[in-house]
């Protein structure tokens, strides 16, 4: 199958849906194609909606500059503030637009957005207790504006024409048909690399992230020669043990729930997820005071009913069933928590494909948005807002370029690579290869990061290339999983090399190196970008942190580095 489109959006989750809608609205007489490996009706992290926006910068509650400051601190200073500011200045308009599409946000009795405080300093959380219909609303909009949608097609590689983007290739995961798409601009919105580490349960798909997101976007961008940024800044989250989903302190916090140790004492001042917070969480887990819990059993019965109504209908609704199976209730029991497997995701941390304030990558015509793009702590509203920003820029870009040419050599090479597992059905099955690869990721890359351990891990990931070449698939579905193993391996190699190369510790637990336990601002106050060289190797570039547009005060600087509550206040604050 061959398709020609003006703009191609890969991934119809949060960022991709909005990117496609906004691009099509801006050029109704041109084709905008939305490609999705699942089905846009229920694809992506918001398959069951979301219980709140984590980072809405709303007038009257916070200024864009406040938000830029907060995220600069939460990300240890390594940010592109212009891009953060662009987000912060556009996020309120995005909320209003979503509101006009029918998304239900929590409002006060006077009709204002009902903002809650979860971050260390500012008030950015906007609850969506009825957020379960998000995908329905986005799909309706996609249909109305006339975006062309192709479901169950997985993109595997991008096509280049003399250094600029020319389209993408992939295959239909039900029929196995190879697909070639020509496009003047491509917006990557493939979500996180959620299948990097193996969850402690050992279940391949029991990940924190939606497991369709296997690092596809990271890998495709890498092979196209785009720069990726701060890959060593892993995503590690505090989650319900075994269930491996959020507990979720952002919902419970405004109602009075909080994180405690086994003695029932609070040990962190704020439940906002950051590397520094995860470090304190990790320390508490491994101290005599672990495990760590989310505590709600001191709350009134009706408050708990309200929390249950939200947590058991949106985001990860099956957590209600999980607790019930074990005979646990928020009324009587605290929720046991643990730390997740590692992943790559700028939505929660900072590892992603490098983009500027327009969503442009370093490859002309290639854009990225959402969890896979480099804007730190961008979350759901960041995915929506940067989806829109990418679309706005891409619509102007395509007017300035001619039709790209499709190079038959690239197409044939990819057709051979992708379809090979079908021609060797007795090759290694995908689940065994993936299990082993991800177990090695756990064994060798999980922080605390040790140099020798990571070097051994890297050897394994390189050796795994041979296993990937010998994978077999007996049907197009298994072929999808086999090709995802390639994405996972690429991400594992990037994660190992990037972690080895940054010889300092930064971002709390996310990049905690045993041999280099402190931050080295003289050498490493930089973005560490990596890219593929023409001969297929990986090279690193230090990108200086651009001068701040929002300066930090001395007092600000300390706020995220002192998250632990000291002993004396523990006693007074303990509930």
């Amino acid at each position, binding site marked *: 199958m061959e398709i020609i489109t003006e703009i191609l959006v890969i991934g119809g989750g949060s960022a991709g849906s909005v990117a496609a809608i906004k691009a099509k609205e801006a050029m109704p007489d041109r084709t905008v194609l939305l490609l999705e490996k*699942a*089905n846009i*009706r*229920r*694809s*992506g992290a918001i*398959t*069951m909606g979301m219980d709140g926006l984590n980072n809405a910068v709303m007038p009257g509650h916070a200024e864009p500059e406040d938000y830029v400051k907060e995220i600069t601190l939460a990300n240890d200073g390594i940010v592109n503030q212009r891009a953060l500011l662009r987000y912060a200045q556009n996020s309120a308009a995005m909320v209003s637009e979503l509101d006009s599409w029918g998304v239900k946000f929590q409002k006060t009795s006077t009709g204002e957005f009902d903002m809650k405080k979860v971050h260390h300093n500012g008030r950015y959380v906007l609850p969506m207790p009825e957020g379960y219909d998000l995908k329905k609303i986005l799909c309706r909009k996609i249909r109305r504006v006339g975006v062309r949608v192709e479901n*169950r097609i997985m993109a595997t590689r991008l096509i280049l024409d003399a250094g600029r983007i020319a389209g993408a290739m992939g295959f239909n*995961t*039900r029929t196995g048909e190879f697909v070639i798409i020509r496009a003047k601009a491509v917006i990557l919105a493939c979500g996180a690399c959620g299948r990097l580490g193996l*969850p402690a*349960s*050992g*279940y*391949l*798909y*029991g*990940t924190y992230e*939606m*497991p*369709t997101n296997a690092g596809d976007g990271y890998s495709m961008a890498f092979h196209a020669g785009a720069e990726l940024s701060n890959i060593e800044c892993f995503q590690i989250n505090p989650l319900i043990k*075994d*269930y*491996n989903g959020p507990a979720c302190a952002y919902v419970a916090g405004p109602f009075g729930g909080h994180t405690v140790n086994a003695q029932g004492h609070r040990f962190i001042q704020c439940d906002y997820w950051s590397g520094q917070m995860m470090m304190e969480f990790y320390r508490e887990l491994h101290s005599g005071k672990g495990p760590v819990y989310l505590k709600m059993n001191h709350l009134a019965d009706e408050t708990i009913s309200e929390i249950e109504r939200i947590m058991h209908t949106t985001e*990860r*609704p*099956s957590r209600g*069933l*999980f607790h019930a*199976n074990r005979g646990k209730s928020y009324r009587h029991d605290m929720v046991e928590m643990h730390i997740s497997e590692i992943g790559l995701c700028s939505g929660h941390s900072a590892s992603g494909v490098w983009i500027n304030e327009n969503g442009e990558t370093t490859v002309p015509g290639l854009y990225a948005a959402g969890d896979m793009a480099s804007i730190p702590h961008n979350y759901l509203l960041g995915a929506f807002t940067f989806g829109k920003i990418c679309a706005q820029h891409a619509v102007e870009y395509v007017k300035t370029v001619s039709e790209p040419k499709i190079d038959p050599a690239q197409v044939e090479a990819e057709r051979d690579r992708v379809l090979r597992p079908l021609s060797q059905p*007795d*090759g290694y099955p995908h689940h065994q290869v993936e299990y082993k690869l991800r177990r090695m990721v756990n064994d060798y890359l999980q922080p605390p990061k040790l140099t020798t351990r990571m070097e051994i891990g890297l050897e394994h990931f390189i050796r795994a290339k041979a296993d990937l070449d010998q994978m*077999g698939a007996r049907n197009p*579905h298994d072929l*999808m*999983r086999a090709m995802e193993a390639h994405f996972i391996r690429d991400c594992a190699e990037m994660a190992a090399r990037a972690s080895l190369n940054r010889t300092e510790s930064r971002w709390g637990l996310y990049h905690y190196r045993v041999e280099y336990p402190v931050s080295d601002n003289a050498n490493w106050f930089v973005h560490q970008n990596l890219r593929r060289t023409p001969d297929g190797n990986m090279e690193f570039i230090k990108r200086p942190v651009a001068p701040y547009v929002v300066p930090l005060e001395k007092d600000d600087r300390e706020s995220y580095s002192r998250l632990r509550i000291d002993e004396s206040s523990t006693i007074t604050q303990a509930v």
Partner: protein
Amino acid sequence: MPQATQHFDLPVVVDQSKCIEGCRVCVEVCPLDALAINPDTRKAYMARDECWYCTPCQVDCPANAVTVNIPYLLR
């Protein structure tokens, strides 16, 4: 390669007496494409142990025929 057959406890259960013949809703909404239609009965079943226990198959089923259990390994 020799084949082994193993028995798995699968998280998604479709009540065959309630499932509507010819309906494909759960198969289409599953992000992981883990469900399939049995060509003989034209009813849905879980064909692959690839589940995020996310529940669209259960919530969108027009016949209330689908139950999502927590996968055994993490239950």
